[in-house]
């Protein structure tokens, strides 16, 4: 009975979404206030019914109702309770239901926090979100119904994929979907601006916090996925250039470009049409991502079971979105106008370079991801494009971008002078180059690319520190409190925080790719192997039992200079549901400057096993960097000016940055 309620609620939500996609739009076109206001009510209703539907599916999992096919496929009686709750998004159908629920939640949030928006604008934004909802809910109902019954009902389920039975996997999909779906809001703002033919600084100020928050979630989602892959897959990899990773990385790249382009639109009224284009492209890339993951065209850890019908549906959705948006763009974008001019060396021109580099990087990732698929589809030949391609293309594009991050925040809007920048930053430049050149020597081996990456990482951190110091110095006359307030302004501090986070990630990548040590060794009890200056000694291997698996567990003691550092216990698990598919559970000792990492391979004879040992430097910096980026984004989005100014400028006022000269500080 409960699953039927869930199904019914889902269909009702679809009906409400259709109404939400049509009525406010008609109202805005005809100037009918009641129709325009219906958007808020319909968005709330849609969310409520989707929440009921989601709760019904969760109930089916919690009570192990195996008459529901999706529950049978993703749960079992022995599955621990916390994983029963999270198994709801462990497969295609349920994760799609989570997706539409989050989409509806964003809609409600827009309705609740955008009271200051002009009512036509709000009506159009909610209508576009309604249309997006129609697409995804219809996709769920017609191709991927999670409430499908299964008769006769099996006695037990086939269990959740053991790889997903992990805390990292609990958080990864919801964070990622929050990000993906958040860009639908930005898309809705862009389409609303195109329909209304009005795009000014106020519009940019409304859109910015939403974009930034969506970007924060996408950053966290990608970071969490990487963190999970690092320890759970057991082979110490944190980024594989897997098509599904790329699917989430492409909108991240254009989303990052969009954040910076919006800064220009808000502060200087520039880049208007480009901002709109980026908003449309970013959303289209999230749909492309859904296609790559859910159509079965690619095979990876992420891919869900194959069903051509689903792929066709999503491709159709992508085609409709692109056709409709680009048609609207072609007709309306000229009306929006280009915005103010700027000199060849100015913050605008640097942000333009930032956008160009990010867009090209995204295109390069897309070519590497789609080309093998296209080739295979037309049966020309089967190739694979692996990490060497992406490393070769991506690195040279990112290096200049990292250099620009150091300069950008110190350069004035509209017109500036490179000589002035040089004077301001020359000492920092020298220090960064020296430190970056010496650091690899301290690590034991020198390579030009590593040194360059470290220089750029240090460069970003030092220029951020210098810029904050200068900002304080400029306010010296106004007392200590004003000085602190100047640097503590959320959007300014958030920008530097995110940049420093990126710097930490860059340093971590340089360090771990250059200095990691990996070794496959045959180890019998009592034998020792040395990796990265650490001595790994195998004590024994014995059986252990878990809730829904049994395992072999090795006890390996790690010492350095005779002192015990850690006891590592890698396991090889056999889940009862999949006895033919053993899973490795790696064991890690994490530290601020290095991780020690062990996974258990296969037994060679009665005593000896093949064991894989890793020394992984600076991994901690990678995760810290991701968190800093996300915190910086949250901080920037929380800036009060987005709320206050939105209220006063809901008319036509265009804020002009009078301090366009030296003092202009913030991009975040």
């Amino acid at each position, binding site marked *: 009975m409960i699953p039927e309620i869930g199904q019914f609620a889902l269909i009702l939500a679809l009906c409400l979404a259709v109404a939400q996609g049509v009525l406010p739009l008609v109202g805005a076109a005809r100037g009918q206030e009641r129709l325009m206001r219906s958007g808020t009510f319909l968005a709330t209703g849609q969310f409520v019914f989707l929440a009921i539907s989601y709760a019904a599916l969760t109930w089916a999992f919690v009570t192990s109702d195996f008459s529901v096919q999706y529950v049978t496929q993703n749960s079992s009686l022995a599955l621990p309770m916390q994983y029963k709750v999270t198994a709801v998004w462990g497969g295609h159908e349920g994760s799609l239901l989570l997706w539409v629920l989050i989409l509806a939640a964003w809609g409600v949030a827009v309705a609740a926090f955008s009271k200051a928006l002009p009512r036509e604008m709000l009506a159009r934004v909610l209508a576009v979100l309604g249309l997006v909802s129609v697409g995804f809910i219809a996709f769920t109902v017609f191709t991927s119904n999670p409430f499908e019954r299964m008769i006769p009902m099996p006695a037990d389920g086939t269990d959740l994929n053991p790889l997903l039975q992990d805390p990292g996997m609990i958080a990864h999909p919801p964070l990622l979907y929050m990000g993906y779906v958040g860009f639908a809001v930005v898309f809705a703002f862009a389409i609303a601006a195109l329909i209304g033919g009005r795009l000014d600084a106020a519009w940019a100020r409304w859109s910015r916090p939403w974009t930034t928050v969506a970007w924060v979630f996408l950053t966290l989602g990608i970071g969490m996925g990487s963190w999970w892959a690092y320890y759970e897959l057991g082979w110490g990899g944190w980024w*594989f250039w897997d098509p599904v990773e790329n699917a989430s990385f492409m909108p991240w790249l254009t989303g990052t470009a969009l954040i910076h382009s919006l800064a220009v639109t808000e502060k200087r009224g520039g880049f208007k049409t480009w901002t709109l284009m980026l908003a449309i492209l970013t959303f289209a890339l999230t749909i492309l991502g859904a296609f790559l993951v859910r159509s079965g065209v690619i095979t990876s850890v992420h891919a869900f079971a*194959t069903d051509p019908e689903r792929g066709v549906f999503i491709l159709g959705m992508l085609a409709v979105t692109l056709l409709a948006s680009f048609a609207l763009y072609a007709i309306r974008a000229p009306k929006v106008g280009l915005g103010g001019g700027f000199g060849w060396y100015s913050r605008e021109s640097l942000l333009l370079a930032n956008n160009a580099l990010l867009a090209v990087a995204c295109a390069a990732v897309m070519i590497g991801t789609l080309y093998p698929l296209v080739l295979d589809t037309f049966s020309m*030949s089967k190739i694979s494009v692996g990490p060497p*391609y992406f490393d*070769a293309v991506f690195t040279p594009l990112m290096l200049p971008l990292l250099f620009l991050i150091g300069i950008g925040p110190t350069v004035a809007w509209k017109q500036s002078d490179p000589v002035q920048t040089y004077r301001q930053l020359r000492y920092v430049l020298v220090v960064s180059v020296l430190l970056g050149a010496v650091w690899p020597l301290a690590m034991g081996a020198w390579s030009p690319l590593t040194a360059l990456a470290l220089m750029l990482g240090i460069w970003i951190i030092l220029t951020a520190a210098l810029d904050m110091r200068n900002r304080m110095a400029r306010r010296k006359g106004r007392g200590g409190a004003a000085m602190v307030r100047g640097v503590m302004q959320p959007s300014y501090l958030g920008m530097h925080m995110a940049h420093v986070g990126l710097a930490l990630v860059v340093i971590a990548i340089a360090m771990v790719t250059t200095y990691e040590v990996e070794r*496959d060794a045959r180890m019998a009890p009592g034998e020792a192997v040395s990796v990265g200056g650490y001595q790994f000694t195998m004590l024994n291997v014995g059986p252990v039992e878990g809730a829904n698996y049994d395992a072999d567990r090795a006890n390996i003691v790690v010492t350095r200079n005779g002192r015990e550092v850690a006891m590592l216990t890698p396991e090889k698990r056999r889940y009862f549901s999949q006895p033919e598919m053993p899973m490795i559970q790696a064991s890690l000792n994490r530290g601020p400057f290095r991780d020690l990492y062990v996974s258990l*391979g296969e037994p060679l004879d009665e005593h000896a096993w*093949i064991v894989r040992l890793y020394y992984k430097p600076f991994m901690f910096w990678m995760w810290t960097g991701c968190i800093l980026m996300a915190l910086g984004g949250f901080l920037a989005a929380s800036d009060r000016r987005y709320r206050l100014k939105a209220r006063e400028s809901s008319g036509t006022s265009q804020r002009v940055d009078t301090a366009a000269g030296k003092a202009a500080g913030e991009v975040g």
Partner: protein
Amino acid sequence: MKKRHKRLAIVLGVLAGAVVATALVLNAFRDSMVFFVTPSEMVAMEEIPDRTFRIGGLVEAGSVQRDTASTLVMFRVTDGAEGVPVVYDGILPNLFREGQGVVAEGRLEGDGTFQANKVLARHDEEYMPPEAQEAIERAGHPSGAGGGYDSQ
């Protein structure tokens, strides 16, 4: 700068960027594209090309030899018609089994053995690596559904 000149400068800048990016992409493609060959095609090769390949097929039953004193392992990959000996140093994927689908990436040595630096097997119960399936089909032995593989 006049407006027209500025526009020209921007267009030229964008063009230059596009050229550089295209060059990067093409160059990277040439160096890092990995072609897939079947065991039959590999055996039929007249000269040994100096590049990385992927080879796919089934692990020939009874062909797996593990050296218990080191981490070396040897096995044969077959498409039903021809077989190629493969040498690999390290841990095999969890679902590596005799008689099951496998994909190996590496180089062909002068003595006809395939020196693998990466071995992929299926990642769940039902599916066969698409490349392995294709190899068997190209050799004229139809088999089951395509699906995922587990890399390591």
